[in-house]
């Protein structure tokens, strides 16, 4: 029996523009590409996959898939899976795994945030303070692991007690789509919004500012180089934008005329000139020159919601 191969780049495929009807789900799921290889392997076919997560703490490494029919976990890197959630949680849009205690899990769903403290065996709603249900993403603060952020339809929500209660942050615009925390200066937060581009905060969300450029479109994805010196953002008919000053100003890097929307951005941690983007309906695109030129890099027709690398 060959040992499972965990290292690689993972892509979450939500749907594919190729499929028609319920029977056409075979080209969706969680895909992995071994670095240096061009082939994507589907680790969980037939599963609408908005997101993923990794747990690398402790003895057991675990791979999570946020799926249309629940939160899936694999402890053997995709060979076998178990759905952890039941009927109450419906679709799972994102997962956040506590970096120190991997038994603590958070998921965001169209009907709010749910939390498990026993590795997914039991779940409870963690929505006190929310005014709306739909939560696209939930993320754990990189320093304070009881602090979390959740992107709601009407506001960005934050908790400082592990999800017991939440407070709406005054970003000033509704439709928060994605949240980014600077990898070095953790007080810097950026959000992508439905119709108001990017907003940024330099005080961990107490106050929010409007940047120069990229202030009036739909932004679904924000990512940065490992040192945070370059931040990238993209969304609906935006192409790819870059900020070299921690989100204060943005310049257009790639028009991406052939792509309707960028869902996901990945910058290789060891080579920041190597980037991938996930698109809606055009699969994955790849750049090796810091985002100036791109080529299609597999999963044609796929709606790729998230791209991550492990380890």
């Amino acid at each position, binding site marked *: 029996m060959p040992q499972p191969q965990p290292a690689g780049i993972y892509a979450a495929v*939500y*749907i594919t*523009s190729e499929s*028609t*009807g*319920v*029977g056409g*789900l*075979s080209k969706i799921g969680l895909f992995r590409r071994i670095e240096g290889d061009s082939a994507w392997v589907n680790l969980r*076919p*037939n*599963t*609408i996959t*908005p997101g993923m997560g990794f747990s690398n703490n402790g003895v057991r490494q675990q791979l999570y898939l946020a799926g*249309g*029919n*629940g939160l*899936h976990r694999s402890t053997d890197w995709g060979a*076998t*899976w*178990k*759905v952890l959630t*039941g*009927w109450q949680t*419906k*679709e799972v*849009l994102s997962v956040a795994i506590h970096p120190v205690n991997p038994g603590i899990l958070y998921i965001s769903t*169209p*009907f709010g945030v749910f939390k498990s403290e026993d590795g997914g065996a039991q779940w409870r709603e963690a929505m006190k303070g929310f005014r*709306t*249900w*739909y939560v*696209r993403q939930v993320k754990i603060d990189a320093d304070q692991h009881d602090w979390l952020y959740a992107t709601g*339809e009407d506001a960005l929500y934050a908790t400082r007690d592990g999800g017991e209660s939440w407070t709406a942050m005054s970003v000033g615009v509704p439709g928060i*789509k994605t949240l980014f925390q600077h990898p070095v200066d953790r007080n810097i937060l950026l959000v992508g919004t*439905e119709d108001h581009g990017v907003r940024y905060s330099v005080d961990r969300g107490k106050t929010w500012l409007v940047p120069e450029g990229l202030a009036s479109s*739909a932004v*679904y994805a924000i990512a940065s180089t490992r040192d945070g010196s370059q931040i990238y953002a993209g969304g*609906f008919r935006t192409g790819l934008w870059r900020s070299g000053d921690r989100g204060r100003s943005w310049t257009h890097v790639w028009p991406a005329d052939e792509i*309707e*929307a960028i869902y996901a951005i990945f910058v290789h941690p060891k080579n920041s000139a190597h980037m991938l983007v996930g698109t*809606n309906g055009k699969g994955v695109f790849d750049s090796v020159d810091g985002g100036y030129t791109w080529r299609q890099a597999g999963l044609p027709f796929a709606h790729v919601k998230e791209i991550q690398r492990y380890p």
Partner: protein
Amino acid sequence: MGIQQSGRGTSMGALSPMKTFALTFMATLIIVSSGFSQSSFEERRLRLLKVASGERERSFQTVAAKTLLGADTSYALVMLDSLSHDEAIGGMFYSYSLIGCYLHVRHLLPDSLHRKVRDAYRLRTMYRGDTENHWVMYYTGLYLAAQTWPSDGGRQWFNGKSSSENFREAEEWLRTWFTISSTIGQGEFDSPTYITTFVPPMLVLYDFAADSTMKKYAGMMLDLLLADFAFEHLKGNYGGGHSRDYPEDIINPLAAPSTLWAWLYFGEPEFAPWNETRYRPRHRGGWDPVYGALSTYRLPEIIVNIATDRATPYVHTETKRVRNVIRFGDQKNPPVFKYSYVTQDYVLGSLHGGILQPIQQHTWDVTYVSDKPNNTLFTLHPYYSGEELAMFFPEEKKFLADEVDRYHKVYTNPNKWNSSSPDEQTFQHRNAILVLYDIKPDSKHKHIDGFFSKNLDVMNQDRSGWILCKAGDTYIAFYSLRNFKLIEEEVNWRWRSHEPRNGVVVEIGSRAEDGSFERFQNRMVALKPALIISGHSVMLRHKTRFGDTMEFVFDGRRILNGKIIDFKEYRFFNGPFAESDLGSGIITLKYGNTRRVLNFNDASTRDYTVE
């Protein structure tokens, strides 16, 4: 309740019971066919099985029919073998229909097929889906599969959960669905298409649930689903407003999958749908009623009577619920108010309007008895938007409309025949309906369409402004308050108005209600509805031919003879054939002096007569 171990036949042992069953069945068929001149349920179900057993179409239902009748059995087993390991199919439709077929025929199967069917629940992803009907099919399949293989660990299941975990989850959700459906209603209510995704799972659950309470609930849900159809049923047609339907079925009501269910359980229409090429069920749901024909469930006589007795016209109202709202709303399941007027000749029915279901809503129509297809008339605003879809689907609203267009080919089409629109509202009183349109500037399509069948016997545009139609014994008077044109199409005239603020008034009559068509016309042309537009307000006022005054303000009040209509007074079901209070979980079916009470609070039914 426990999970029971299934029995298994062997390949050698299977032949004997198969032959026995087939011979018994054929003998029964001969007796039934010769003994009745009037079609009975027993006769219809055997006829359906016989026809389905001759089908070459690959489906679990035809496999079950062929296998149990001993007709072309070897081909049936090849079909089942192919279906059980075809990786191109899976999901919730597969989940319930595979286990349904398997449990019906397992005593006749060779060992190899037992293994393949079992493996399907390990290897195939039984995707749960995202709609009410998906979940009913998924959890019914999971419940019965977990019951059938009760001791397996997570590695034997596609989702990694053990048999007991899957069983418990499925049971919990099914019980929750029974409660919701019997207290605030279905979200996918009264659908001529999707009824065929709710009834068959409940049939196999009724037939094979080992737990007596679950079996009881399944039977009660079948009563409720079929009674809900019966209230608005007319000669095979599913009348009234529908949560979801396909354009082909909306403009040709007897083409819908519900027709075959009506034929099987209500005995109407009198013709067998598969023999009528113009009404032939399309692929979708074509042979699902085989599970009804095989089932031990029997529709209570009171529901058959409710479905077929149209001697006295009646008003029937219902409260349903909007599908789960995930964004842009402050209620997860706002109420839907439904009004139907049913006679021996037609059903005029409506939902109160607005966005109640994404994509496939059918807000109002009159459907009339006819020996010709396309026996309906309605109007709609062909609306689409990312906001509408994002209310119900988690994808980004910027491109949801295009995504949905790939699956439901006509979603953005300006000529589509199904639509929910925030710019359309109705007000119905008996056989008269006012429909108001206030199309906002940001709506993508700024016109209103109406469907007039070319099969109408008469369609006259009168100088008075009324369009007067006759179809058999049904009369229709249609009045547009603003300009319109008629566009000829293949099977219909498309009434189209480019006036964004418009209203239509429709009154329906019949030989029974009005005498001659001439008398009906004379009554109607004397009436003059009024559209009053003042600032942001759009109001329609009309006095019907029976003297009722209706006044209707868009997004405002509905007033009937000086009294404001208060939707808060709507009950869960209310009419001569049913009554139920919202949230009670108790539905009383009524016919003559007979009563049947469905009490979902304690899974009980009670039949009695009143003095």
